[in-house]
């Protein structure tokens, strides 16, 4: 087990390094800098500014300083656009918001998805099964940027129940639509995966034995089937997490919730490279760590995995 974790770390760390180096190289080689403007700055001023931000240093020097600052001080450097804020400030402001609705979305996607999948599998070929399958097929073609306007259309413009955007400290009315928009397609995928793996497990020999012994159905599902059927779901959680973080960009932009996605897109329009890089690296690291956790969990639960 220990050596498995170490081996996975041995992959995770180079991955993070590749991400940092590539995005840094992109920034370094990009045509036009953050200080290019309509009215060119006098050369002396430009030289001073570049020196202040350390942009006159050679590539390897810049990147080592950059990495060192992140590792040692969680300092992603200053924002090029907003002179009074550092990248860490911006992440600090946006990340809690993203985390809040991301957490709820994740929770709802898993709970509702698993429940829907299990029910569909147990009542196979009944209306509830068809409903579950229908939902999961339909949700595939409704990515969050399609769902978000439809939700606003329904809940805000037609019914007038919910505010069309904003955050307001995370009150529940402001949470509902972001969470639905973000979680629906993953809920659908989880339901589909659960259904098919549950169907497979329910035909296994040990389930038949349990039924023959007269174990009640709910106990069979909870005690015997669910644990095994959850393994494919668990391995889906890694990619789902990545996609959800990506999806949060749309939620932030569309509902103006003020998460990091909004800052990311704004800085993309402003060519604020340091903010973009900071967010990309942070999300990359989170993704890799999360994948690592899922893998370790998987290996821990499934005795058949060699490690």
């Amino acid at each position, binding site marked *: 087990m220990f050596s498995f974790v170490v081996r996975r770390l041995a992959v995770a760390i180079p991955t993070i390094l590749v991400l940092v180096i590539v995005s840094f190289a992109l920034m370094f080689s990009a045509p036009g800098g953050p200080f290019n403007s309509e009215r060119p700055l006098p050369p002396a001023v430009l030289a001073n500014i570049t020196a202040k931000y350390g942009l006159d240093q050679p590539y390897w020097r810049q990147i080592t300083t950059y990495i060192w600052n992140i590792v040692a001080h969680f300092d992603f450097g200053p924002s090029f656009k907003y002179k009074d804020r550092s990248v860490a400030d911006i992440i600090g402001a946006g990340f809690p918001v993203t985390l809040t609705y991301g957490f709820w979305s994740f929770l709802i996607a898993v709970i509702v998805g698993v429940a829907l999948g299990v029910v569909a599998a147990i009542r196979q070929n009944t209306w509830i099964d068809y409903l579950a399958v229908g939902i999961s097929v339909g949700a595939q073609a409704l990515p969050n940027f399609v769902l978000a306007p439809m939700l606003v259309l329904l809940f805000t413009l037609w019914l007038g129940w919910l505010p069309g955007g904003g955050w307001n400290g995370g009150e529940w009315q402001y949470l509902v639509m972001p969470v639905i928009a973000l979680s629906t397609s993953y809920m659908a995928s989880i339901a589909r995966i659960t259904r098919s793996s549950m169907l497979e497990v329910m035909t296994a020999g040990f389930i038949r034995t349990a039924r023959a012994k007269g174990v009640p159905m709910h106990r069979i599902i909870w005690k015997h089937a669910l644990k095994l059927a959850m393994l494919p779901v668990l391995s889906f959680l890694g990619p789902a997490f990545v996609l959800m973080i990506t999806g949060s960009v749309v939620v932030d932009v569309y509902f103006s919730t003020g998460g990091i996605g909004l800052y990311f897109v704004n800085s993309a*329009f402003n060519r604020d490279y340091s903010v973009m890089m900071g967010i990309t690296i942070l999300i990359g690291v989170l993704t890799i760590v999360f994948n690592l956790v899922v893998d370790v969990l998987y290996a821990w639960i499934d005795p058949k995995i060699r490690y």
Partner: protein
Amino acid sequence: MVYPDKVVMAGVAGAALLAPVKGRSLWSDAARRYSQNKAAVVSLVVLIAICLFAFFGNFFAAWSNEEIDWARMGNIASTGAPSFENGHYFGLDDLGRDLFARTVQGTRISLLVGLVGAGVAVVVGTLYGATSGYFGGRTDQIMMRIVDILMSIPFMFVLILMLVMFGRSITMLFIGIGLISWLDMSRIVRGQTLTIKNKEFVEAAVATGVRPMRIIMRHIVPNLLGIVVVYATLLIPGLIITESFISFLGLGVQEPATSLGALISKGASQMQYGVIWQLLFPLFFFVVTLFAFFFVGDGLRDALDPKDR
């Protein structure tokens, strides 16, 4: 066994007189299985219709996608609604352009993104995966580790980073999407190659001294085609979603070019002004295209992938 009708009717004696019974290839078998899947057949028809719409729809448009209807642009909410009389079948967009022509243009770009991305995936992914799987051992490990590393990077962010650094253009979007699209394909192809490379015909080729790259191209890749076609079809909707996602944020395709994602974004930002058709038409084409690809892909998988039968 099901014999062709002719043979059964002619009887045993007559069978000998008939021309040799026509053999059934993998592809004709697959075509037969595909045609039995109703959803897949309907989707294929829908998909062809959408392609025709995207590439020839302009011939039916009364207005071009760049023309501004000055007479109506001042009051789009009341005069710009879809109507056959004034030739704006889908109404006007927020700048007074014909939404029908815009939707044609957007659907075309979205389809192109999907097709180009899938093309890259097919070429690069197949070669990469087949090479990795065929050589095996250390080469395989290193090549697949690279794919692992690339896959665990949140690509949407890097893609946006690239688009910002090198300018937002369709070319850059194509390059960016091409960079990601082959990863999954290479994994699938590698897995399939691992089983193919132990077959006798590959052994025979090795024994007669055929060079490795030639074995891959002539003996392994043709046997991969079925699975490659299936996954390429299933990949296209994902790529269309990726492109639309970026265009929705305003970072992808730039005016005056457009894509379904950009149109949906525009429509979504305008919907409180009573111009709901600006959202609904692009949305309809987007959703229908995705559904069609999903079902065609599913049908192809059932028809071509022997594993799931």
